[in-house]
């Protein structure tokens, strides 16, 4: 095959893959509904991995005994959380199910640990990348008072747009980096 055709073909293939990847995420960011989730404190030793923050939410741990119906989940199962936005503007999960909720805002998660009465869920919004040397503003708060502004699309996929401390968006540009 003509090398020029191969070159052009492969270039288009790369554009399709990378463009598709970006498009998939942009779809969630642009078309999704913004939801504010409160993060809960995490073990300070686990807070940071390099230059990203580990985030946890109330919905990260699900008490199965509080769910209606005898639901059983195994690791790697998909779980759907129905979101309700409270008067305080924060999103919370009012119901969990194995089926896609109809005509409701919901977030999709994957079970990564399953016990008899409790499961741990990953929603794809547990990491937030911070500029080098500037994560101390989050570390100092030990995850308390830190909120995540998340975009959730109609398929339940979620992308973190930004983090807030005391309801104010963190502006890393104005924060001075600390040398390690």
């Amino acid at each position: 095959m003509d090398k020029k055709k191969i070159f052009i073909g492969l270039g288009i293939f790369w554009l399709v893959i990378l463009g598709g990847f970006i498009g998939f995420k942009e779809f969630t960011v642009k078309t999704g509904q913004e939801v504010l989730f409160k993060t809960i404190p995490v073990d300070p030793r686990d807070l940071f991995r390099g230059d990203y923050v580990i985030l946890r939410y109330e919905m990260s741990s699900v008490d199965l005994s509080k769910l209606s119906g005898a639901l059983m989940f195994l690791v790697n199962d998909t779980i759907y959380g129905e979101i309700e936005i409270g008067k305080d503007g924060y999103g919370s999960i009012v119901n969990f199910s194995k089926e896609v909720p109809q005509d409701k805002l919901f977030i999709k998660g994957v079970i990564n640990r399953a016990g008899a009465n409790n499961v741990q869920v990953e929603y794809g919004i547990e990491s937030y990348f911070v500029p080098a040397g500037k994560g101390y503003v989050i570390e100092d708060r030990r995850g308390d008072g830190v909120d995540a502004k998340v975009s959730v699309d109609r398929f339940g996929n979620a992308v973190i747009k930004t983090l807030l401390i005391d309801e104010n968006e963190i502006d890393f540009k104005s924060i001075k980096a600390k040398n390690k």
Partner: protein
Amino acid sequence: MIDQKQIQEWLQSGTIDQKQATKMLSDATQTKKEESSGKFVTSIVSLGSVLFGIGAVLFVALNWDGISDFFKIIILLGVTFGSYYLGYVLAYQKQNYPKVGAALIFLGALLFGASTFLIAQIYNMNSSPRSMYILLGIWLVGILPLVYGFLSKAIAALASVLFFAFIFLVFTVETTGANSINEYSDYNFLLNTLVVGIVSGVMLFSIGGFHYTSEKLKEVGRIYRLAGLQVSLFIVFLLSMKFLYDILEYSRYGGEYGVSETVTVWVAVLGIPAFLLSVANLFFSAVKTKTVFAENIAAILILALALLLFFFSGLKTFMMFRVLFTAAFAGIILMMLFIGYQNMDMTVVNKASFWATLFIVVKYFEWFWGTFNPYLFFMVGGIILIMGGIALEKKRKELKARFTAANMGHHG
């Protein structure tokens, strides 16, 4: 390449006269200098390309808050496609710097991976093993067409590394904590990793075999086969050692042996295709020689041993598996030496010699440590290694000279 010794021999035999000999020697010397200079330049330019690529990626990563997401993506795609385009122009369009061009295309493949990971970071994709295998999968799928479009051995080697990393992560993520008897058992994790390593090694080895149907794809297939062989061989080597079984037993922490349903399903998901590919290679290989047949039989036997270990591991069977894997390893080394000799392939002979030496050293420690006095142990061991090394080097030189002479005889 013609050298001074060859020219001298032709002159002495009267094949050429003095004038011709002088001209040939001058041309050969000039060509050698140009080739050497060319290699040096290629290395410098390749290194420069890699450094530029790393710099571009670091620029984006370290100025995260200073650049908008849109420009981050533009820079990443620009450097990736720029390297790829420049490589194509130099290697195929103008064809004036083919090696530099190939190095730039390889850099493009690396930058494709870096771009994928940085785009994931832009969207704060979870930094977890699950996300990692998705990103590795994207990288692997992205560069595979480059392997076949440009018949790049370097990118085939990169694809092989990504293949193993991808299989390992998929298996680990999909089976960790899932219904396993010892849910977070180090024993299960270690054993499963070793078995899956052999399964994926045999799979890649067999996939490489199918490439021999096409003359153009033969070199790519060889890369896959060597990669699959090296990984499988390394694990078989580990499984022939007593200390590994001691570690396995220690990591059990007194828990039960046995496998879970989920893990078994995944081993089957990987093992069955590996087995079918190996058997298909046996009967439908384009190269119908005894050595290829023997290689494929060896692959099937190792796969079978690995699966037996997976299903029947336990304190009572460890000794039996250690003996079986030791025999398997020794058998493979001897076969590699035989194949290397038959095919006059120094790469295979060197690799076999390396593994044989390592095997002898490890077994010497395993069998004789504690048997002799320490000073005698090390002295005897040292003498064996020195003498063995001299004999090995002598044999290697003989083989190399014989292979070179035989190749020149074919081309002459």
